[in-house]
């Protein structure tokens, strides 16, 4: 056995764990090798020194403190168990908590979302308005009409058209309530005014001040869009000489044509006949005429109208008396793009108030 082999076994040799054969071999080497003998002596001293290290005493009262904690611990299991709810009860509780938190999060998310005008003016608010109007105006809306509106497939018309029509309907109905003969179930003339497209025709009906008072914030936003379609909203209180609405209307449209404009293109709606029938039974009331007049001829047109009666601008309509060119410039590009084609033609809504 050489020095390395001997030194590898010195630890076990000192601990008495070597077999007698190995022990004999180690001792034989140590007897011959002074270096290894010195090494084993040093190692033995180190081990004995550790074993003789002064023992440290425990802090006073250690046992009492430990047992106090132990006894406290022993009394606690009941409380610990209370924290552990059985699985059969835990799952429903957790599921309910998750649903509540999720529902609350969804509610907060929706409440925090700014609502786009078109979304706001979608079907539900308008229907509510209709029902309200139907209730207020008694016969203006039958249940069947409301139901029909509700069942109307959205895919059959564009969203804008649908919204526009609904807005027109809801906008005109309150005006009906102001009439001196509210018992008559006649829908407003505008409701059945022939239209070629809602953007050009129907949207103008939103000009009434009553609408703005009555409409909710959602419908107001759409009304704003609709109002842009009527460049001018005028009220003509006809002189006593103009008692016939048809004649006066013809005169106005002829005037517009003379000035290079056109009567508003129109097509009868499905309810026109019914509206005419109802209108004939109604008491005299304002008629509405839509004409297109070149912007540069607007002054002439309004001057000519002034000869037929008292002409006033309806503040609730487009609400401005600026020159046409200025009016055009006031419109945003987006609004202009919505109102195409209206290059230099002003769309004028003229409400005729006939003498009784």
């Amino acid at each position, binding site marked *: 056995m050489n020095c390395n082999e001997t030194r590898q076994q010195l630890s076990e040799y000192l601990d008495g*764990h070597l077999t007698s054969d190995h022990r004999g071999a180690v001792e034989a080497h140590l007897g011959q090798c002074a270096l*290894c003998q010195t090494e084993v002596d040093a*190692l033995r001293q180190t081990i004995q020194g*550790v074993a003789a290290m002064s*023992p440290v005493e*425990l802090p006073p009262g250690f*046992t009492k403190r430990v047992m106090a904690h132990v006894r406290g611990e*022993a009394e606690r299991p009941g409380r610990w168990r209370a924290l552990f709810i059985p699985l059969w009860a835990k799952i429903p509780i957790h599921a309910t908590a998750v649903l509540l938190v999720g529902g609350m999060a969804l509610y907060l998310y929706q409440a925090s979302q700014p609502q786009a005008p078109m979304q706001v003016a979608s079907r539900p608010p308008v229907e509510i308005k209709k029902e309200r109007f139907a209730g207020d105006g008694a016969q203006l809306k039958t249940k069947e009409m409301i139901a029909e509106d509700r069942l109307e497939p959205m895919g059959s018309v564009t969203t804008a058209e649908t919204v526009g029509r609904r807005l027109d309907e809801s906008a005109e109905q309150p005006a009906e309530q102001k009439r001196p003969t509210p018992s008559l179930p006649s829908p407003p003339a505008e409701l059945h005014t022939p239209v070629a497209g809602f953007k050009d025709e129907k949207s103008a009906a939103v000009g009434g001040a009553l609408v703005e008072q009555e409409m909710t914030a959602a419908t107001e936003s759409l009304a704003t869009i609709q109002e842009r379609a009527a460049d001018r909203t005028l009220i003509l209180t006809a002189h006593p000489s103009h008692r016939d609405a048809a004649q006066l209307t013809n005169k106005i449209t002829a005037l517009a044509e003379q000035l290079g404009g056109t009567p508003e293109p129109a097509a009868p709606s499905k309810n026109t006949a019914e509206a005419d029938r109802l209108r004939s039974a109604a008491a005299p009331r304002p008629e509405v005429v839509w004409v297109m007049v070149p912007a540069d001829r607007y002054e002439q047109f309004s001057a000519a109208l002034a000869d037929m009666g008292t002409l006033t601008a309806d503040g609730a309509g487009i609400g401005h008396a600026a020159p046409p060119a200025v009016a055009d410039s006031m419109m945003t590009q987006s609004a202009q793009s919505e109102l195409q084609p209206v290059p230099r033609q002003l769309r004028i809504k003229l409400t005729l108030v006939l003498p009784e």
Partner: protein
Amino acid sequence: MTHDTPDSQLVQRVQAGEVDAFEPLVERYQKPIFNLLYRWLGDDDDAAEAAQEVFLSAFRAVKQFRGEAKFSTWLYQIAVNQARNRRKGLAIRNNRMVPLAADDPDQDGEPAVTVADPAPNPLDNAQRQELTEQLQHGLDRLDADEALMILLHDLQGMAYEEMATVLKIPLGTVKSRLHRARQALKRRVAPMIGIERTVR
């Protein structure tokens, strides 16, 4: 009576809910456990807290103890784990406080940890304290696992087999690690305690 009762019986009584039966176990093992922790952690307060936590942990888990190993072995496993966790968060002081250092100017009164005085001769006692201090200094500078090997075997007198169980390492590893640790400590303390360094 309880002082002669075997560990296994006391453990069974504790498992049956007799809390007081745990006290003899604490009294039986608190000193070696505290000494091990003190020598390994190097601070009496840390050692006292760790020892208390060892016994509390043992009490909490005593129902899971099935007697496959000795209670003392199981308790040492808890102590080693507890001390390892503490060491991770504890910066071992370079200049650790050795109790009753005769020339320690801070030790002007009763020390926090007193040392038993088995030596009848005051001179022997002083020499012993000095040796203890030098060895502790050497242990502090060893790798933690190496120091633990020496403390378990040479200080606590634990057998190789029990060390293998406590440390969960093979018996051969115990032997080789212990040998390496002793050699390392010898190299560190030899110049200080007058051992001639003859082998490199």
